[in-house]
């Protein structure tokens, strides 16, 4: 086991712990609450 592999394992576990904590609390970076897409006036397609 190299030192950086151990460090990587620690990093992985920290990431996993944060992900599970977020999942338990139903937190997501991608939830849509308070995010009103049309709040500022919807204007149709962005196609030019």
């Amino acid at each position, binding site marked *: *086991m*190299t*030192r*950086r*592999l151990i*460090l*990587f*394992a620690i*990093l*992985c*576990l920290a*990431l*996993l712990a944060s*992900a*599970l904590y*977020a*999942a*338990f*609390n*139903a*937190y*997501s*970076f*991608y*939830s*849509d*609450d*308070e*995010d*009103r*897409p*049309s*709040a500022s006036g*919807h204007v*149709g*397609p*962005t*196609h*030019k």
Partner: protein
Amino acid sequence: MSGGKAITCPACGGKIEVRAAGFTVNLACQNCGSLLDVSLPEVVLIRRYKNAKDRFALEIGKRGTVFGQEWEVVGALRRKDQITIWQEFLLFNPYLGYRWLLVADGEWQFGTPLADRPQGDRNRVFWRGENFSRLGRDQPTSTTAVAGEFYWRVKAGDTANATLFQSGETILSREVSDGEENWTQLVPVDETEIENAFGLNRRSLPRRKAAQGLMQFKAAPGMEQDDLGRMFLLAMAISLFAAIAMALLAGPSTKTSSMIQVPVGGQIAPVKIGTITVRRPWQFVTIDADANRFENRWVDLEYNLVDRSSEQSIDAFGLVEHYAGTSSDGAWTEGSHHGDTMFGHVPRGTYDVYVSGSAHGWPVDPAVTDAWGSTETINLTIEASTGAMSWGMWWTLVFALFAWPVSILWWRFRDK
């Protein structure tokens, strides 16, 4: 001028000094880089090159004293394995034979070829009364550039399998190529001693590889175990485990759905879709809106989750839009007839799901067209459910897990 001999390069016609005449087999012309065979009285061109473009940290022909003995730099190699790139210099003194200088990541080592082979097995060898234990795994190494002269047939692209054994500061290196086994004893030597002896071309030192942040914990050059495979395995295992754990933490699931009609150019008051129950302390609530086919319309939806016990409402918004048209580039479409909305961090409770919204035409709302004065409507199936997991969060985790091993991989294959 040393006691060498001069030859003429058959490729470029330049004069080349052979420093270890009688020992040197292959020589790369200092002027044009062409590889020559000088083992026989007639110089033979092995491979023609246009210019000697590779620069090394030490200049061929420099003389200096290392560990009390005088040496001349006669050859230089650039080599690499899966982890490191380094330079090797062949030192020559006609009375003492050959030695090596290796440099990688700012560390220098002085190498002495061994006539007496260490004895032992894969993991441990015994040499001159000392035990050496294996350092890392066998590494396939290859030569990427050559300059100067060598006592064997050398060329860029040569490969060897290298294994290192260590005892204290001394390293024994075993290189096997074409069934031939060569052992070299390596001891550390200060860069200042090398600089004083030969002068140093600092700009041509092997690049230090991103020794910043977490990378600075990487082991000394040529001594790492190849841990990359294990990193990928670990990242993969954790990704898989996280997917299962996140799905379990997301459940259980309840669902309700209903169809609504939204008039284009108008709006509807809140309609109750149904009731869902959050059975865990916190859950995600997802609401999917699925519309019939329409073109150049958008539907703004507002969702309210009203807690039956507290009458508190949690709000979120959804959007379904689809456009089509033709421009100078041809036909185009944009948007989707489908819109997902996710509520995060919804506390335990029973919720009535209400939806209200408005629909519009683009670029303008359509006029009422038929004689009956009936209005165009958009039909939407709204389905609310609990118990979904956030795949976005999972992909974020996967990205973070693989970022490190993928950067190492990239960094390894970036050079040549």
